Each structure stands twice: as structure tokens, then as C-alpha cells.
């Protein structure tokens, strides 16, 4: 096919100028036109290398400010790199600023024409696929109204529809695969897959690990402008999730990512009691590991997540005085929780191992075991510890002396059994 994206050693530097840098001609004239040197530089991207083949989807993950959008812009030809090279072959279609060319006072149809022309189509081509774009955006009955009457979602749908109908050979998507309602989202994803099957090389930024797992052939994790991981989606997503939870792993910049499970592997997790588990019961978690190399002071950690993704509990062996040199061989580590006041529901157990002082993630196993807590009488909330309500019925003026007399105690409506 002969197109795709190859990025080698990409680096991009931004400069911050001192705040008294002249902004107007007058100021510059008074300042005597001296050259202002940038105060300090920082690298928004450094040593970034990867490639996307035709028919391949690359997902880009990372924190806010990790350099994801900068990377996409550079590939789109906006701005120039300070280091390294970008080779692209093929026409770039991009969803970076959705609805950039839209003007409030013009109708959807007029805006569609201009936006598609900006997107690189000719007039004949736009007219040929106008109906298709409108149909995809589900705007048939609104297309001749001014954009100012549109809801945000409608505008986004139109913009998205235009962008994916410009026949791109390289498609760059900046966190826009979550446009509109679920129905439209599904349609967009289907369309992106169809474009991929036609040989389009696609890069998209996502904050959703599930989406990356579902769509991507490969994934890239950026951290402060550097590649933290570049591998198959599962590995990268695991790394991303670990990085997203600072208590689990406070030190983000990792120079080297170890291949998970190479030095130590968690082979099994046992919970006791198993079933039934009631709110407030003690819980013991046992991890079996198989250590392959001697490890000084590794940190074991355990997380409990609610099925909706909320992290309910984490604990680790850091500063617990139970770290020591672990020698090769199998072993077992035990976490004893005195009481676990989780409300009724489904929870999953995750476990991981970091090297000394959180340097690298050595092993991570998600959803190793499931914990089902029997329903309590309270439906909402993640926690249900024993609690007592007290109502003071005494009049305010006689409060001092009738403190006890006027109180009535109400026993907890559902005590932890």
C-alpha cells in the first residue's frame, strides 16, 4: 500500500519566555529591540520512536500533559520537530480540533461544505458524499438550520462525520471516539474499523483502556514526553493502569520497563473465607509467588476494585518492615485484613509486585479473584461500617441539664453481622 507512519527519535522542545517580553511594537521600540532569549526550555517529547503500518491501529495512552496531543499534531504536520524524523506517506485526515472551521451563523450544510474542503476534498467530491455525511451524522432534518441552533452533540457528530468521510490514508484521532451517545459511538468505532480494514493507518488517543484493548493492534504509553511502554495493548494498558494509581506506584518516570513476570510471578491468590462473605468479616489474602531472581526488598501490593472500577482498598508492603531479600523459589505472602466493611456487591482482587522503592513494576495480575459480598440492607455506597444514629430531641434552653434525659438512642438499622 505504501503508506503509514514511521517516527524516529522524535523530540519537541517548547520555550518559555520571560513575562516582560515585549508584546507590542511600542514596547519593543522602548526596549531597544534587544533579542529576548527563552528563559527555559522543556522537552514536550523526547526520544519517541514507533511506527504504524497501513491497516493497523495504534492507541496512545498517557496522563494529561504527557505529550499525546503534541505528538499527534506533529505527525499532522502542525509545527516542526526539533529532533528526529517523521515519515508519513498518504493523505492525513485528522480529528484534532473538531468543528474548527464551523461558523455559528451558517447552516449545517454550508459548514459541511467548508469543513470538508478544509479537510482536503474537492467540491465535486463533497457534493458526491454530502448525503452520506449527513446521514451518518443523523442530522437529516436539521442540516439547513444554522449551527448556533445545534446542541453540542449535534455539532460534534457533524464534525466527526465529515472527518471520517474525507478518505484519509492516515487518521489521527484526539480523544474523540467518545463523541455522542452510545449508539453513535458504536457507529464511529465500526467506521474506524472499516477504515482500518481498507488499509488506513490509524492513531488515536484514548483515556479508556477498554477501548484500547478492543480496537488497537498496538499501544503506546507516553509519560512526560517519553515512551513508557510500546507493546501489545494488554501489556501497555496494565502499565497504564498501574501508573494511574499513585498509591500503587508513586514514582512515575520509569526508565526501563521490565517484562512483567520475568523476575517474579504471582501464581495464585487465595481468599479466606471464600463464600459466603458478609460485610465486616475479616479477610485473609494469600499470594503464591514464584521468584526467579534474587530480589531485594520487593513491594507486594493488593487492590480491591468495585465492579464499576472504583478502587476501594489498597495495601502494600512498603514500610511495613516485612520486606526482605527474596531468594529464588516459590513462596507465600499473606495479608490479614481485620475487618472489611465493604457494602454488598461484586469486587475484584488485583495484585502486583514492584522492585525496591517503587522503581519498576515487576509483576501485575488483575482480577485474580472475585469477592462477592452478601447484600446488606443499604443499597447505595461502597462502605457499610457499623454506625449509630443519635437524635437530640431536647429544647435548646434546657439543653445543659437535660442532656441525657431527652436523648433517645436509635439502634443501627443494620448492624454488621
Amino acid at each position, binding site marked *: 500500500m505504501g503508506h503509514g507512519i514511521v517516527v524516529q527519535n522524535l523530540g519537541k522542545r*517548547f520555550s*518559555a519566555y520571560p513575562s516582560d517580553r*515585549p*508584546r*507590542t*511594537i*511600542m514596547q*519593543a521600540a522602548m526596549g531597544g529591540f534587544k533579542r529576548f532569549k527563552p528563559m527555559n526550555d522543556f522537552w514536550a517529547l523526547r526520544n519517541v520512536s514507533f511506527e504504524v503500518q497501513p491497516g493497523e491501529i495504534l492507541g496512545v495512552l498517557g496522563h494529561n500533559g504527557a505529550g499525546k496531543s503534541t505528538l499527534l*499534531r506533529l505527525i*499532522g*504536520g*502542525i*509545527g*516542526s520537530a526539533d529532533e528526529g524524523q517523521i515519515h508519513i506517506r498518504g*493523505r*492525513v*485526515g*485528522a480529528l*484534532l*480540533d473538531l468543528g*474548527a*472551521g464551523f*461558523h455559528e*451563523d*451558517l447552516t449545517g450544510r*454550508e459548514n459541511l*461544505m*467548508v469543513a470538508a*474542503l*478544509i*479537510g*482536503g*476534498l*474537492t*467540491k*465535486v*467530491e463533497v457534493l*458526491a*458524499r454530502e448525503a*452520506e455525511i449527513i446521514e451518518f451524522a443523523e442530522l437529516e432534518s436539521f442540516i439547513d438550520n444554522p449551527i448556533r441552533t445545534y446542541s453540542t452533540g449535534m455539532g460534534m457528530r457533524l464534525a466527526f462525520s465529515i472527518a471520517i*468521510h474525507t*478518505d484519509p490514508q492516515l487518521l*489521527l484521532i484526539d480523544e474523540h471516539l467518545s463523541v455522542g451517545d452510545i449508539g453513535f459511538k458504536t457507529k464511529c468505532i*465500526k*467506521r474506524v474499523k*472499516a*477504515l482500518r480494514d*481498507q488499509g488506513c493507518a490509524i492513531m488515536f488517543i484514548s483515556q479508556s483502556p477498554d477501548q484500547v484493548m478492543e480496537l488497537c493492534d498496538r499501544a503506546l504509553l507516553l509519560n512526560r514526553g517519553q515512551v513508557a511502554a510500546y507493546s501489545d495493548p494488554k501489556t501497555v494498558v496494565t502499565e497504564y493502569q498501574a501508573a494511574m494509581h499513585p498509591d500503587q506506584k508513586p514514582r512515575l518516570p520509569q526508565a526501563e520497563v521490565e517484562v512483567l513476570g520475568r523476575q517474579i510471578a504471582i501464581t495464585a491468590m487465595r481468599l479466606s473465607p471464600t463464600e459466603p462473605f458478609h460485610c465486616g468479616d475479616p479477610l485473609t489474602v494469600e499470594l503464591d509467588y514464584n521468584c526467579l531472581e534474587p530480589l531485594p526488598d520487593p513491594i507486594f501490593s493488593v487492590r480491591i476494585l468495585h465492579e464499576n472500577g472504583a478502587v476501594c482498598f489498597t495495601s502494600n508492603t512498603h514500610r511495613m518492615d516485612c520486606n526482605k531479600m527474596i531468594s529464588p523459589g516459590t513462596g507465600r505472602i499473606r495479608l490479614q485484613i481485620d475487618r472489611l466493611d465493604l457494602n454488598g456487591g461484586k469486587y475484584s482482587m488485583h495484585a502486583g509486585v514492584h522492585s525496591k522503592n517503587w522503581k519498576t513494576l515487576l509483576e501485575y495480575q488483575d482480577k485474580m479473584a472475585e469477592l462477592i459480598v452478601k447484600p446488606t440492607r443499604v443499597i447505595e455506597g461502597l462502605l457499610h461500617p457499623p454506625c449509630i444514629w443519635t437524635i437530640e430531641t431536647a429544647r435548646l434552653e434546657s439543653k445543659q441539664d437535660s442532656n441525657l434525659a431527652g436523648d433517645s438512642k436509635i439502634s443501627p438499622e443494620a448492624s454488621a453481622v
Partner: protein
Amino acid sequence: MAISSKLPQQKKLINRPWIQRRDLLVGLVSRDIKLLYNRSALGIAWMLINPLMQLVVYAFVFGILLVNNSIPNFTSYIFSGLLVWTWFQGSLTEATGAIVHNRALIRQPGFPVAVLPVVNVATGLIHFLMSLPILLIFLWIDGIELHAGLLLLPLLMALQFALTVSLAYVLASLNVTFRDTQHTLGVLLQMLFYFSAIFYQVPEQYSHIFQFNPVLILIDGYRSILLSPEATTASFGWMPVLILAAVTAVLLPLGHRIFQRQSERFVEEL
């Protein structure tokens, strides 16, 4: 899932980029014009009303209140100068904001940024062309006959177009670093307006100073074609126009390069 039928245009691969550029330019210009007149009651008629009102003012002030001139065909004389000036001033002012006001467009991959000032100048050209028939009517009232020399007009217009675009490139670039360029330009243009002999004739003793005003060179060119048909080829000195064309030929690629670089810098600014 079937993606839309392959495009008919894709066979002519060599032509396509140019067709695309042209369509984009036309699309952006027509959007500009629609936006200008979309929500006004008189709509597109403003294109004609504007220059006419100006003409009434100037003709009243300088033709009736301050009658001290002996310019033949005074109305046509003012109107021709006024039209040329309005095009120049309007598009230059607009285009100076070309980079600063179009961040979203500049950030579209593959968007040919250099088209932006061209859009502004082309919008001005449309206004100019719409007003041209009125000028021709005034010429007819003044008893000046239409003649073959008018065919030279497009050449002058092309020169004005190119000159305005080149200046716009430079000014729009400057406006990125110094945001007050647009305001400063307003004052400078005001001065230039009075030095462009729109409603007077250049006194003989100052003509050596005035000859450096590019707008005056253009206006003189237009006037010699429109107002004095018999002198078009004979007595009018075409040298200044040719020099202006040469200067523009140098300025245009230079301005283009500066513009390209500045717009690239602009989108990178945090």
C-alpha cells in the same frame, strides 16, 4: 461495511491538488461573503450601498463645500480612487489578522495556511468587481465612452491583488509577534489615504514625493485607463507600474515564506 464509492476525481491525480486549492479558496471566500451579509436586512445590497454612501460624502465635501478644484469628471475621478482604495485598505486590514484569528484552521493538518490572506484579498476583489458597474455608469454619465483600453484593467487588478497579498503576508506575520500591528496599521492607512490623491490632483511640485506611494501608482493606472482613454497608451508613464510589478514579484515569495514560518510558530505557542 462498504465505504463510499471511489471518487471520480481520483483519476486525474496531477490536477487534483490544484482543483482542491481552488475549491477551498472559493469555499472560504463565499463563506466570508455569506457571513458579512447573512443577518442584515438588505443582505448583499450592502456591497453597493457602502461605496455609494462614501461617494456621496466625498462628492459633497470636496465637490460642493470645498470647491477649489478643476478636476474634470470629478465624480468618476473620486469614485475610481475610492474603489481602489477601499479594496486595498479593507483587505489589508482584514488579512493582517489572518494568522492570529484563524488558530483553529491553521491547526488542521494539511491546511494551506498561505491561502488565508488570499481569501481576504479575494473577498475584497469581489466587492470591487460588484461596484465596478456603478463606476461604469458614472463614466457613462460623465460622457466617457467605453473602449478597448478597459481590457487592461484585469492586469492592474492582478497587480493590486498580488501587492496586497504580499503586504498582508508581512503584516500578518508581524501581527503574531506584536499584536498591536493591526491598530498601528489603521493609523498608517489613514495617512496613506490622504497621500493617495483620492479627491485631489497631486500638485506638480510634490509629485517626486508622491511617486513612492504604491497605491497612488495603482490609482493613477486605473484612472488613466478609465478616465482618459485617448491617453492610455500614449502619454501615461507606465514605468512606475512596471517597477511596482517588479517589486511585488520579489516581495510575494519573500512574504510567503515569512508568513509560513510565523504561522507555524504561532500554533506552537502555548
